[in-house]
């Protein structure tokens, strides 16, 4: 059998976070720009039989919105989006994210694309899963150079939720509103390699499990129906991860 691809493991790990029964329910999940792995995780949840509504902003045909991204933000403002995904060129230990750039404002050293809707969505949505494949001291920093969206807010600021977790190419961290806790390390990683690659401090329990591989059932779904759902929006991702699989 074809070995588990890292992207498949990440998608399955995110799917388990989505289904975490300890978190507020995820009845309606939105996926924004350039997020193939979170999108795969959402499709996996759907194809596992969970009745979740998915709104994929970048779907061209059958896009769920008839007023573009404005409708997404209005839905979130109303409290009708339960879960969203955000990334960051930098992410720090207080779950602040930076999508603007490094160095002086507005990213004079290295410019990232920009904040997108993060400054609103991170506060409006009850659950955010932070996702960034690159796990290095360049990305996971003690303090972001620029705050696109804050991880925590003072009590008088309107806010529905914050980060549930941070998923990287090396591990899964949980976030409790104050700090990250190492939840699992992916195969090939150790608590030491994660610590070495992480620029911010975090809590590390005495025993940290290995991130489980997708089950054979999950793998079959990822390589079949999930891939079919993804082909139109993320052709290059599908070609890279699932190259050689029959259509």
């Amino acid at each position, binding site marked *: 059998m074809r070995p588990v691809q890292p992207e498949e493991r990440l998608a399955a790990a995110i799917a388990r976070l989505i289904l975490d029964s300890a978190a507020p329910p995820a009845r309606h999940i939105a996926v924004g720009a350039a997020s193939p792995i979170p999108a795969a995780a959402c499709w996996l949840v759907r194809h596992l039989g969970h009745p979740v509504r998915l709104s994929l902003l970048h779907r061209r045909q059958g896009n769920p919105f008839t007023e573009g991204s404005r409708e997404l*933000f209005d839905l979130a403002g109303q409290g009708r989006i339960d879960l969203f995904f955000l990334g960051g060129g930098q992410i720090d230990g207080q779950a602040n994210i930076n999508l603007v750039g490094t160095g002086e404002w507005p990213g004079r050293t290295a410019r990232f694309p920009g904040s997108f809707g993060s400054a609103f969505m991170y506060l409006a949505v009850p659950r955010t899963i932070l996702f960034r494949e690159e796990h290095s001291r360049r990305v996971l920093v003690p303090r972001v150079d620029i705050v696109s969206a804050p991880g925590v807010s003072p009590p008088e600021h309107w806010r529905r939720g914050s980060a549930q977790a941070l998923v990287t190419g090396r591990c899964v961290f949980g976030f409790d509103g104050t700090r990250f806790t190492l939840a699992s390390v992916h195969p090939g990683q150790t608590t030491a390699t994660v610590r070495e690659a992480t620029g911010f401090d975090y809590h590390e329990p005495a025993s940290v499990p290995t991130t489980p591989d997708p089950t054979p059932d999950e793998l079959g779904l990822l390589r079949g129906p999930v891939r079919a759902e993804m082909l139109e929006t993320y052709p290059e991702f599908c070609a890279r991860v699932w190259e050689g699989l029959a259509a």
Partner: protein
Amino acid sequence: MTPLALDALAALVPDGALLALPPDNSLPPNELARALVRRGAKGLRLLGVPVSGYATDLLIGAGCVTSVQTSAVTLGEAGLAPRFSAALKAGTITVIDATCPAIHTMLQAAEKGVPFMPLRGLLRSDVLAHRPDWRIVQNPLSEAPDPIVLLPALQPDIAAFHAACADWHGNVWVGRRRELATLAHAARRSLVTVERVVDGDLLEDERMAAGTISGTYIEAVAVAERGAWPVALLDEYGTDAAHLAEYARAARTDEGFQGYLARYVMPPRAQAAE
């Protein structure tokens, strides 16, 4: 309504205009952007509604732009926008960062003709910290402390986008991309390229009316077949990912970008879309 030639439409965009453009997934007027490059437009102030893509990077690289207000600039799967990044680093453009719902809200305020609208979120974001025109006030309807951000109405001089079709009454059809109606309502003038002009009245057809923007808001129309290329148009054609990747590679250097212009933009249109 008589459609203009593309170059005549481009001539309606004055140098220095605040020009609002939709992103690559929402009917950007890419053929018009190429015509603006050929015209040698100067001093444009671009507004990404709510983010920016290929047309913005192209206009920046060609020296047509002095400032960009946007929530992000990206070529999607083709990666970062190279000419935008280079111009920011060189200091040849001013970048005014926003966040997507704030741009929608500022346009909605203009659409309603009110001076400002509130928006939740944003507090403690450095995007807000760098926007002296965005104000934090106490929610006047709340007894409890409840700071909220007010955003000023934003009225673009010109909105430009590429619709699937127009009718002879000047109505244009954008399908489900109805956020473009807000843009057209908010802008002083809307210039639209279309694939084709159709007979009949789009607003008389119940199934087309909801995706139609009334000619009331449309200043002028020009026919530009495959006018969104290299990005997608509704269900009519898809994104030319290979071309966007070629652009992203070429635009890494100014020399490569000039080669791209010479090959795909400066020749009279038609063969560019092959």
